[in-house]
């Protein structure tokens, strides 16, 4: 088995928190039920009456909590958990050398390449800020006067995406649409490079998705079929008559006692409860599966790292750790670029410094806040 590591990004951290927060919903419902009109006292009284009734009451409470929170949890998790899984997959790489720190500069690697290798995506504010810093370092632009002044747009090494971005600064036409176009251009350049390639769809993944979809859609039919078989059994009729015979003014505790007085009636009662929950759940499951498939398709990992890409990703991981543990770059401003050299750009790219992103996106002709990017 291959040893892998993951580069923790802001996105994966946020998704992890949301994903876990959703699981609190059943706990909140359970607590509110227990506190509502002294529900917990009712449970205690049931235990005082008989431990069997107490356990049945707890089981019913858990079942009710589960069925109430199921739609919220299932639908939200179909979104957040799938997004998180894909985000983790995108930031996970195969370990080749296994080191924690890397202290050298990544000579000849563009910010877009570093960003793409980190999480297989380009984030506009962060990556445009890092690219502007890179241009500053190369003497292509000057940002010292609260705006981006283009000094040299004829640098021999500029790629089409760089020329496009620099021209927008020069002509003062930079806006959200230009930023998106730049992202697409930069992405294409990286994918066509030596570090990343388009991911091929494997038979296993496609079959897995098809099976999940089919099962999701078949679930209501399966539930209805089981219910029909269950209701057709001869013993069910006698059980049904027993239910009808329970007087209306019977207390819950007494009713439970009657329902669970024999092993066969206990089994039927449990079956009835589970089917009662499965029928509304069978309506939710196809919705959940549909959401899961849509989210999986749209947030799925579309690229994979080549061998060279894996080597570089491990170095990026090492640099991120090094900057995090061995520097105070999170507090550095863009004027310290000359001192920190490429490492300040790495700090911005690897989300170790957010203040510079804010500094840059507020520059006169790089107003990204306006476009909420």
């Amino acid at each position: 088995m291959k040893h892998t590591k993951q580069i923790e990004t802001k996105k994966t951290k946020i998704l992890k928190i949301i994903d876990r927060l959703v699981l609190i919903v059943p706990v909140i419902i359970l607590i509110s039920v227990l506190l509502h009109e002294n529900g917990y006292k009712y449970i205690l009284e049931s235990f005082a009456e008989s431990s069997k009734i107490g356990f049945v009451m707890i089981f019913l409470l858990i079942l009710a909590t589960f069925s109430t929170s199921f739609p919220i949890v299932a639908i939200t998790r179909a979104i957040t958990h799938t997004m998180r899984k894909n985000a983790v997959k995108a930031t996970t790489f195969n370990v080749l050398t296994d080191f924690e720190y890397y202290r050298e500069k990544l000579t000849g690697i563009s910010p877009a390449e570093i960003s793409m290798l980190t999480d297989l995506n380009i984030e506009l504010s962060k990556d445009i800020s890092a690219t502007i810093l890179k241009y500053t370092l190369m003497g292509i632009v000057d940002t010292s006067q609260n705006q981006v002044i283009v000094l040299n747009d004829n640098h021999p090494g500029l790629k089409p995406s760089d020329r496009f971005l620099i021209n927008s600064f020069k002509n003062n036409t930079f806006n959200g649409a230009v930023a998106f176009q730049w992202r697409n251009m930069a992405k294409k350049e990286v994918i066509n490079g030596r570090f990343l390639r388009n991911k091929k769809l494997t038979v296993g993944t496609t079959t897995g998705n098809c099976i999940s979809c089919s099962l999701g859609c078949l679930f209501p039919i399966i539930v209805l079929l089981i219910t029909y078989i269950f209701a057709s059994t001869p013993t069910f009729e006698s059980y049904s008559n027993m239910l009808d015979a329970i007087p209306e003014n019977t207390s819950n505790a007494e009713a439970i006692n009657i329902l669970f007085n024999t092993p066969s009636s206990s089994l039927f009662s449990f079956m009835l409860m589970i089917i009662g929950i499965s029928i509304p759940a069978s309506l939710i499951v196809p919705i959940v599966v549909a959401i899961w498939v849509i989210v999986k398709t749209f947030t799925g990992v579309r690229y994979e790292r080549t061998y060279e890409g894996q080597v570089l990703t491990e170095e990026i991981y090492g640099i991120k750790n090094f900057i995090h543990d061995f520097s105070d770059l999170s507090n550095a401003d863009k004027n310290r670029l000359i001192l920190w050299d490429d490492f300040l750009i790495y700090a911005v790219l690897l989300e170790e410094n957010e203040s510079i992103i804010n500094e840059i996106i507020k520059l006169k002709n790089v107003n990204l806040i306006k476009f909420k990017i």
Partner: protein
Amino acid sequence: MEPKYIIIGIIALIIIILVGWLISTRNKFVVLKNRVQDQKSQVDIQLKRRYDLVPNLLETAKGYAGFEKSTLEAVTRARANAINAKTAQEEITANNNLTNALSRFIAISESYPDLKSSKNFIALQEELSATENKIALSRQFYNDTIMKYNNAIQLFPANIIASILGYKKYEYLQATTEEAESIRFNSDSFKM
């Protein structure tokens, strides 16, 4: 429940929290101190690289008739002092002196056109310049790790533990004026 048991329980809880905090604080100091020492070794590696480059550079200059002997001697002496430095302070001073001597040596070499155009000398000079940049960067990282460590041992209430356990603050490595002015970056590091 009797009040004495509640009091004992509270005291036990406070002791557990205190011991936990003590252990985590002490471990944090150890990690930060190890990082300082680790980064110091990185600075030393770069300095060693510079010490190794200097004799080659001097040897090349010696081949050119009339090159100021006193300048060569000053660089040799400064290098020897830097290598033989015993304490941290001595090392800082000696390396600053070596930087100054090398700056003077490079400035004087400008007046020797043959030496200036020698391929070997140019290559060595470029390598020296790259090493100087690496030293500067390593030193910045070193100073940052020192800052994190010093902050950890000086901030209240961790400073109490630090003084009990004998953790002392580290001195920052200061750059010389010439060095600070000569920090240049490699424009080809982000070749596109």
